[in-house]
């Protein structure tokens, strides 16, 4: 296999969400196996137009050329530049690999222009993100997603939950879909850290640190976390709730804890660096991910890799990651009172917390390193190429 082309609107240093990291690590692992990989992505101030990063050829195209009346118009416009500006790089590609609807237009166009097979990773769906389709913007994105999955030779999703979702939402045949989890870079536990100093940045020495990491939006259940914290504080005082991340609900959450007189027990950090987050994972006592919608749940894996107990809501990808009582605990979604009891159970029993953390740690190393994810992805590529070579497109 000569060249794989990734179409992704984000790639470091342009980082909007988890997609940039996903493409960065997967392309790097594939390049390490001798695959020629080209990533076509958007420009970023200071980043070179073309460069090699860990053996991966990065081509950055213009993202703001013409005025756009709205976000969707802008997305399709930069897809046009992805085709035009990167075309010379693409004639030898074996497979086009696109991520989400944001690169749909360029991916589908190049598939037909070059007559190459298209692999699509659906990280989430508009239907899932919104809990339905309620307006024309969402309907357009939903239709583009449907179109992209229709045009794909094979579709990759990150969990069994997402597989069910794309089957239901797009009426896809199940045998067109491969489940390949997201990978993570396990936290380096051998790196020495000053535990006391780090802990004191967030909590008193006598307080247990209960950690939430994620965007502060409804889907991530930050309001459940806050409510569970307030409930737990009625029974014990030796806890500190640390919230990492930002989002539209941050102001509301800060107002609620202030009105309830417990603002000193919540620490909203906003965005913090990866290093600081890794340190925080290592010094906390328990991590909580009470999402209402979660295609995968990479933060839970990060916490597991730090050998910390995780408590997740029993939804989506989180439900697939956690074996209840073995490598974490599951709680019913949208129930802060049960959640507060489960948090209490873990922080009251250090032996049990350690047992969960240890099992989670081994679970991550066994299943979710990028090394393993790259192997699984290569299997999908090989299958696609095998089928493609028997098709009429290959002969032409």
């Amino acid at each position, binding site marked *: 296999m000569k060249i794989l082309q990734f179409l992704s609107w984000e790639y470091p240093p342009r980082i909007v969400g988890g997609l940039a990291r996903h493409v960065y690590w997967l392309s790097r692992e594939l390049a390490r196996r001798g695959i020629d990989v080209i990533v076509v992505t958007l420009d970023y101030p200071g980043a070179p137009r073309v460069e090699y990063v860990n053996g991966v050829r990065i081509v950055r195209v213009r993202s703001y050329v013409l005025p756009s009346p709205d976000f969707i118009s802008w997305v*399709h416009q930069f897809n046009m530049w992805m085709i035009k500006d990167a075309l010379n790089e693409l004639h030898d590609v074996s497979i086009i690999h696109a991520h989400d609807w944001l690169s749909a237009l360029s991916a589908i166009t190049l598939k037909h*222009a070059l007559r190459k097979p298209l692999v699509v990773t659906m990280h989430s769906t508009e239907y899932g993100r919104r809990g339905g389709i309620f307006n024309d913007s969402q309907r357009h994105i939903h*239709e583009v997603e449907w179109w992209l999955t229709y045009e794909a030779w094979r579709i990759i999703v990150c969990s069994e939950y997402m597989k069910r979702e794309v089957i239901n939402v797009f009426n896809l045949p199940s045998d067109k879909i491969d489940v390949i989890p997201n990978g993570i870079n396990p936290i380096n536990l051998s790196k020495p850290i000053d535990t006391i100093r780090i802990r004191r940045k967030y909590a008193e020495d006598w307080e247990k640190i209960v950690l939430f990491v994620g965007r502060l939006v409804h889907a991530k259940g930050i309001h459940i976390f806050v409510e569970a914290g307030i409930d737990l504080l009625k029974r014990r005082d030796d806890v500190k709730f640390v919230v990492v991340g930002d989002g539209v609900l941050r102001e509301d959450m800060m107002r609620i804890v202030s009105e309830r007189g417990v603002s000193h027990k919540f620490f909203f950090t906003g965005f913090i660096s990866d290093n600081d987050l890794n340190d925080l994972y290592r010094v906390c006592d328990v991590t909580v991910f009470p999402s209402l919608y979660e295609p995968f749940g990479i933060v839970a894996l990060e916490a597991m890799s730090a050998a910390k107990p995780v408590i997740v809501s029993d939804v989506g990808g989180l439900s697939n990651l956690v074996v209840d009582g073995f490598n974490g605990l599951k709680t019913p979604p949208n129930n802060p009172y049960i959640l507060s009891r489960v948090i209490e159970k873990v922080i009251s029993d250090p032996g049990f917390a350690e047992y969960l953390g240890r099992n989670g740690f081994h679970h991550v190393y066994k299943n979710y390193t990028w090394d393993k994810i790259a192997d699984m992805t290569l299997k999908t590529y090989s299958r696609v190429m095998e089928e493609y070579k028997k098709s009429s497109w290959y002969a*032409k």
Partner: protein
Amino acid sequence: MNIAVLTHEYNGGIGWWVKNEAEKLAQHGVKIAIIYPSEYENITIDGNITIYSVSTIVKTYLNIVVRALILISDFTRAFSRLVYDYGFNFNLIYTHEWIAGISGVVLKSIFNKPLIASIYSTEYMRSSEVGLLQLSIRGYEKQVFEEANLILAKSRNTLLSISSDYGIGKEKIVEALNIDEAVETVIKVFNI
């Protein structure tokens, strides 16, 4: 000589023009493929004229810019099928208005064929508003004008607008007020 004609509509005034112009070019031995978006996918071959109605999966558009951009993929699919499955060896890409024109710009890049842009009016002529939508359309129009090898302006005012409002050199703009003038210009410029 094979010409791919891209139009966002195959009815009304543009449709009438496209159909009659294709018939005239066909009389000169030119093989024409007219590609237009439709509810269904269908190819009809009648002598030198092939009509390809290309189905569009996306039905919901927020504005005409999104519609035009989505068409890039639909037109490319049709163009590619005609090349690879029907043996068309296109020498020219001929687009009507900016909506199909931006697909022409992309197809020109991919297949390295000259582009003719047939322009009936410009956004400056159609609208005096200066919202983001109008600015966006003007930007796409300019892109089409800059990339086109030949621009057929369908009125004197259109020619002047393309030249003065968009800064396009008059040497590649030809005023073609009727089908005969357009056909004659295409034959002359491209040595058909």
